[in-house]
């Protein structure tokens, strides 16, 4: 369902904005970490915030591979889908 995907996107962007102390308007699904000035330590801190927000565990290797908002949304969607197999949130692997 497209609505779920958009909600998820909005939630992820909200977490990014809050964690990075920037406005949600400045973050889009196509933003890269570089554009948002998210360095390696910020990235790990973001993963930590997302784990709490969605109550999921993000493996270290996946965490390292993430470099954009879109990858983050896709990764969270996959983890949520794995948590409840009936969910329609799952997307194609990045």
């Amino acid at each position: 369902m497209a609505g779920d995907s958009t909600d998820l996107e909005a939630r992820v962007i909200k977490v990014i904005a809050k964690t990075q102390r920037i406005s949600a308007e400045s973050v889009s699904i196509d933003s890269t970490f570089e554009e948002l000035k998210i360095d390696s330590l910020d990235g790990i801190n973001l993963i930590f915030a997302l784990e709490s927000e969605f109550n999921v565990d993000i493996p270290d290797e996946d965490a390292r591979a993430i470099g954009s908002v879109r990858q983050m949304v896709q990764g969270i969607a996959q983890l949520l889908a794995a948590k409840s197999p009936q969910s329609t949130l799952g997307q194609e692997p990045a």
Partner: protein
Amino acid sequence: MRRVAVTGIGVISALGATRESFWQALAAGVSGIRPMELVPAGTVRFPNAAEASDYRAADHFDEKEILVLDRFAQFAALAAREAVRDAGLEWTEDLRDRTAIVTGASAGGQTSEDESFRDYYERKQTRFPPFAIPKAMSNAGASRISFEHGITGPVFTISTACSSANHAIGQAFWMVRSGAVEIALAGGSEAPFSPGMLKAWEGMRVVSPDTCRPFSCDRKGLILGEGAGMLVLEPLERAKARGANVYGEIAGFGMSSDAHHLTQPLSDGSARAMRAALADAGAAVESVGYINAHGTGTLANDPTETNAIRAVFGAHTEKLLVSSTKSMHGHALGAAGAIEAAATLLALSRGLIPPTANYLGPDPTCDLDVIPNVAREVEVEWALSNSFAFGGLNAVLAMRR
């Protein structure tokens, strides 16, 4: 300025509770990384560690002493005991007054702290034991060594995360070289295996899910270690005069700060510390044969360190032997530099360079001769030992045979 000899070495680590067990494992390329036992399985995602599993506190301290000494301070005391015995020092009141103790410790007595905080927050115990504060202080190891040997000269502790021990040995070296003290006991100790501390490391996502493979392809991070290393430093002339065994000399010390980032290392800062150590020693780049690398096995450290080494050594890099003994004794944080200085001095004095264990194959971003898996018999004149800390603080020791 006086030349400074190392006449005593004490080591406790995942490679055993003595200097000789340590050396035998290094020489054989045997890793001490095993399933973690000090905290319950499943506490954190990473199952392996380099614990000092041969160590039993009761073998070395009585019950009352254990009550007031955190594990990290016990390690410091035990390594210092072995180093002092090894050096064959004969104490006089005057010598005790002209002896310094400089220790490195990153987290200090946090295992005890974690336990007492759990008693309070989780078990709702409202009273703290009176030892909670003096057990947790980072200078507890240095103070214990001072009591045990009656050393009354300058005694202090340096805390610069993973560079702590190198900063400590460097300061002690300068004090002996300048004549500020006659003898120095210097090194570092660490005991990071508490549930709270391990959860914090898990949050940093730098600990490997399997083992530590510095400079190797498919490396996945560092492996936490524990233990202590202690060295006895004294003027070379004095050591010769009393017929002491000399492992080698501490000949130079260099420090720098990246002024860059909390956790992302910068090769320029590492390079400046190596150059400073060589300049302090008056050693030419071409004279160096071996580098005991910081070599944590993280994705960030190893290529950065490789670039730094190439920047300092240029064409001579091709002739350099570089290994990370963390592949065997783990990353002992505030003790790392001391354990690695011990490894470097033993390597120089015994003509055998320990390997980088657990090595699977080359990573093009770490194109150094890292002595994969098998020690190499080579007589080396000069060596460096690198420590680079979170917070961008770099400390490098230059040693000679």
